[in-house]
C-alpha cells in the first residue's frame, strides 16, 4: 500500500511538533524515520495511525484521501502501529489480547487459537494462546502485537523503537520477519528509531526529522556521518576516552550470592579498581540486576563477602553504602529516582543535608538554577520534574549526585535518550572517572557496554558467564555470547 502524507501540521500549544511534513512510503520497502528525541517522529506516526488528528494536512492511501478518527479506523484502512511499550492488557491471556477489538463473529475460541498459532508459525514466532501476557518477555509481547495487527489486515506497519528492551535473538527474529513482510508480502514498513546502525542494517530509505521539520531523505546504506549531520545541527566530536586510572582495588566481591524468589545469583567474585568502568551485560533478569542492587545494599547478600577500599563490610545496607560514597541510579527515573509532583527546587531541598525545621527556599532555588545552568537542563527551578523530558530528568539526576563519590551504580543510564544526551552523560561520567570514581552499570544496549566499559561481565540465568576486558571483545561477540547461552 502506498502512503502519502501531505503537509501534515500539528501543534501542541506553542510547540510545533510537525511543521508541514510531506513524505511518501512505497509498498515492499522498509523505511527508517530518524530524528533525536522530540524531533516529531512519534507525533507524525501517531497521526498516520489514527491516534492523533493533524491540525492540517492529509493522509493519502493508494491515491485515496483518508481521515482517521481512531486507531481502529486506521487499522481498518490498513495502517497498524506497534508502540514502543506494547499496548496490550497484561492480565489477559495471549488469546484474549489477540481477540480484543478484532472482528471474530461466530469464531470459536479454539478456531481463533489455531488461527493465531498458524499465523505465528508463518513468521517463526512461538506463542501459547492460553499463557498470561504478563508472563511474556517484551519481545514476545511485541510479536503478539505484530500478529494482531497483521490479523487485523495491516498493510502498512509502523514500528516505534521496537528493539528497546528485547534480546539480540528476538531482534534478529523481528528483523527477519520485517524483511519477509516487505519483500515477500509487499507490505509497507516504517521503522522509527534513533539507532543508526539498525536503520542502516534494515532499511532501504530513511527520512530524517529535526525539530518538527523534514530535513531530508537518504537512500541507504550511506555513511553514518551523513545521517548524523542531518539529525543534529552540529555535534561536538566525541572526546577521546580518558585512560583508566590504574588505581587501588576499590570493590572486592568474593563468592557473593543473592537470593530472591524469582532468581538466585550464583557465587560471583569480582574486583574493581578506582576509576574503572564495569559493564554488566545479559538478558533482562539474568542476575546482573541482583549484583548491582546487592552492591548498592538494596538486596542482602545471602553468602560471600564484600570489601570496599580494603575494609570488609559485613552489614552492608543502603544507608551504609551512601555513607561510604556509593550512589545508585535506578532504571525507573520517575519511579525510584525522582519524585513526581515535586519541583526541581524541592528536589534540591530534599537532598541537601540541612537539618533545621525550615527550608531555606531562596538558597535551594538558587542551587537548582545553578545546576540547571551547569548541567544544561531544559527547565525552570519551579518546573515539576515529571514535565521534563527523559533526557533532562536524567541530567537532573546527575546534577543531584554528590561530589567525590567512590562508586556509581547505574541501571540503563541512557535508556530512551538521544545521542546528544547520551554523549553528554558519558562525558560527565568520564570526568568523574578521571577523579577516581569507579562505575558499574548495566544496559540492554550492547554497543554502549562495549564502547564505555573497561571490563565487561556477561550474565545468564543467574550466573556470571564470563568476565572479559572490553578491549578484547565487540558488541557482536557479546550478542552471540548472550544469545548462545540460552
Amino acid at each position: 500500500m502506498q502512503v502519502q502524507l501531505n503537509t501534515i501540521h500539528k501543534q501542541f500549544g506553542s510547540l510545533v511538533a510537525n511543521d508541514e511534513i510531506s513524505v511518501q512510503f512505497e509498498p515492499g520497502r522498509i523505511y527508517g524515520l530518524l530524528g533525536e528525541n522530540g524531533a516529531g517522529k512519534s507525533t507524525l506516526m501517531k497521526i498516520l495511525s489514527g491516534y492523533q488528528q493533524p491540525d492540517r494536512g492529509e493522509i493519502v492511501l493508494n491515491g485515496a484521501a483518508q481521515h482517521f478518527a481512531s486507531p481502529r479506523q486506521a487499522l481498518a484502512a490498513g495502517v497498524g502501529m506497534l508502540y514502543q511499550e506494547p499496548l496490550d492488557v497484561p492480565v489477559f491471556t495471549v488469546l484474549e489480547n489477540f481477540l480484543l477489538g478484532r472482528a471474530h463473529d461466530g469464531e470459536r475460541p479454539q478456531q481463533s487459537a489455531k488461527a493465531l498459532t498458524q499465523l505465528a508459525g508463518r513468521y517463526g514466532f512461538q506463542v501459547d494462546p492460553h499463557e498470561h501476557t504478563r508472563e511474556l518477555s517484551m519481545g514476545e509481547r511485541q510479536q503478539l502485537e505484530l500478529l494482531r495487527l497483521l490479523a487485523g489486515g495491516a498493510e502498512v506497519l509502523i514500528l516505534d523503537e521496537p528493539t528497546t528492551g528485547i534480546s539480540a535473538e528476538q531482534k534478529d527474529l523481528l528483523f527477519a520477519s520485517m524483511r519477509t513482510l516487505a519483500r515477500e508480502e509487499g507490505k509497507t514498513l516504517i521503522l522509527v528509531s534513533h539507532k543508526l546502525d539498525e536503520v542502516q542494517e534494515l532499511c532501504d530509505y530513511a527520512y530524517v526529522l529535526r525539530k518538527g521539520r523534514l530535513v531530508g531523505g537518504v537512500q541507504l546504506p550511506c555513511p553514518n556521518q551523513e545521517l548524523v549531520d542531518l539529525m543534529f545541527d552540529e555535534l561536538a566530536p566525541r572526546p577521546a576516552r580518558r585512560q583508566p586510572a590504574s588505581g587501588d582495588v576499590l570493590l572486592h566481591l568474593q563468592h557473593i550470592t543473592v537470593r530472591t524468589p524469582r532468581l538466585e545469583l550464583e557465587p560471583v567474585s569480582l574486583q574493581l579498581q578506582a576509576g574503572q568502568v564495569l559493564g554488566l551485560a545479559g538478558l533482562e533478569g539474568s542476575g546482573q540486576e541482583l549484583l548491582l542492587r546487592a552492591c548498592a545494599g538494596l538486596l542482602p547478600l545471602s553468602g560471600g563477602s564484600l570489601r570496599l577500599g580494603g575494609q570488609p563490610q559485613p552489614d552492608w545496607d543502603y544507608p551504609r553504602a551512601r555513607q561510604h560514597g556509593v550512589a545508585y541510579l535506578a532504571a525507573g527515573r520517575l519511579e525510584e529516582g525522582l519524585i513526581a509532583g515535586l519541583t526541581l527546587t524541592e528536589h534540591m531541598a530534599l537532598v541537601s543535608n540541612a537539618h533545621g525545621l525550615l527550608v531555606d527556599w531562596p538558597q535551594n532555588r538558587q542551587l537548582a538554577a545553578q545546576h540547571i545552568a551547569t548541567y544544561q537542563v531544559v527547565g525552570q527551578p519551579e518546573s515539576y520534574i515529571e514535565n521534563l523530558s527523559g533526557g533532562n530528568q536524567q541530567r537532573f539526576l546527575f546534577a543531584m549526585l554528590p561530589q567525590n563519590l567512590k562508586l556509581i551504580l547505574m541501571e540503563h543510564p541512557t535508556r530512551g535518550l538521544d545521542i546528544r544526551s547520551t554523549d553528554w552523560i558519558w562525558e560527565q561520567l568520564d570526568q568523574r572517572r578521571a577523579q577516581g570514581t569507579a562505575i558499574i552499570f548495566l544496559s540492554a544496549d550492547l554497543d554502549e557496554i562495549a564502547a564505555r566499559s573497561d571490563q565487561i561481565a556477561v550474565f545468564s540465568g543467574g550466573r556470571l558467564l564470563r568476565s572479559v576486558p572490553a578491549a578484547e571483545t565487540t558488541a557482536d561477540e557479546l550478542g552471540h555470547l548472550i544469545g548462545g547461552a540460552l
Partner: protein
Amino acid sequence: MDSTQLIAIFGSILLQSAPLIIAVCGETISERAGVINLSLDGSLLLSALAGFAAALLTGSLLLGFLAAAAVGAVFALIVAFGSLHLRQNQVAIGFVLAMLGDSLSAFLGQNYTRLPGPSVPAWHIPLLKDIPVLGPILFRQDAVVYFALLLVGATWWFLFRTRAGLELRSAGERPEAAFTRGVAVRKLRYIYAVLGGALVGIAGAAYSLDVKIGWAEGHTRGMGWIALAIVIFGGWSPLRGALGAVLFGATKALATVLQRSFPQVALVAFNAVPWLLMILVLVLVSGRLAAPLLARAPAALRRPLRGLLQAAPPAALGQPLDDN
C-alpha cells in the same frame, strides 16, 4: 439441633445474603470497567426507601424495584459524570454521595417509618424443591434469591466468556490499549457504571421489600461498606464475591448462635468475627502463602486455581483515560 433446623438456618443465611450478592455483582461490574462507585452505602439506603415507598404507594412490587434501580442508577451516573466528564476524583464523589444518601433517606423517609407494606412472596419451585437438602435451601425461596443466584452466573459468564465482557475488562485494565483497538472506553464505563448502580438499587429494594421488610432510619446502614469490602475480598470475581457474601452471612448467623451460648461475652465481639475471618482468608489465599500451595497442586489444576486464588484490582481502577 437436628438436620431440619440446620437446613432452615442455611436457607435463611442464603436469603439474608441475597441483597449483598446483588450489590456485590453490581459493584464488581462497575469496578471491572474502571469506575469505583463508593456511594454504595448511601445509594443502598436511598434505594431501599424509594423501593419501599414506591411499592407502598402504587401497590406494585415491580414498580418498587424499578424505582430503586433508578435511584441506584442515578447515583452511579453522578459518579460517572463527575469522574469521566468533569475529571474529579471518583473516591471523593462517591464518599460524599454515600453521606448524602444516608441523610437524604433519613429526611425523606420520615413519613414512611415503621409502616406495614408489601413484600416479596415466597415462590417454591416445583420438583426442584423436593430435592433432599438442596431443595429446601435453594428452591424454597423467593424471586429475589433466584435473581441473585442467576445474576452471579450471568455476571461471570458475561465478564469472562463474551466479547462485550472482554471489552469491559480491557477498559478497566488498560484503557489506552482498549482505545487503540477501537473500544469506546468512556461510553462503556458510563454504561457499566450505571448498570452496576441499578443493580445496587435493586439490592436496596431487596432489603426493604424482602429481607428486612419496611423502612426505618438507617435501615441498611453499613451494608454498602460491607459490599465494597466483599468486592475486594472476592477479587473482583462475581463467584468469589458471592461466596464472600454467603460466608459473611454465615459467620453472622454463627455469631448469633455463639452469643446465645456465651451471654457473658459482649455482642460487639461476636460482630467482629466475620471481619476477622475475612482477613484470615485473604491472608491465606493471597500473597506468599498461595505460591507454595500452587506449586504443590497438580499441573492441570494450577491454572484455574491461580485464577481463583490470586486476584488484583483492575489496573486502571479509578483512573481517567487521557484524551489526546
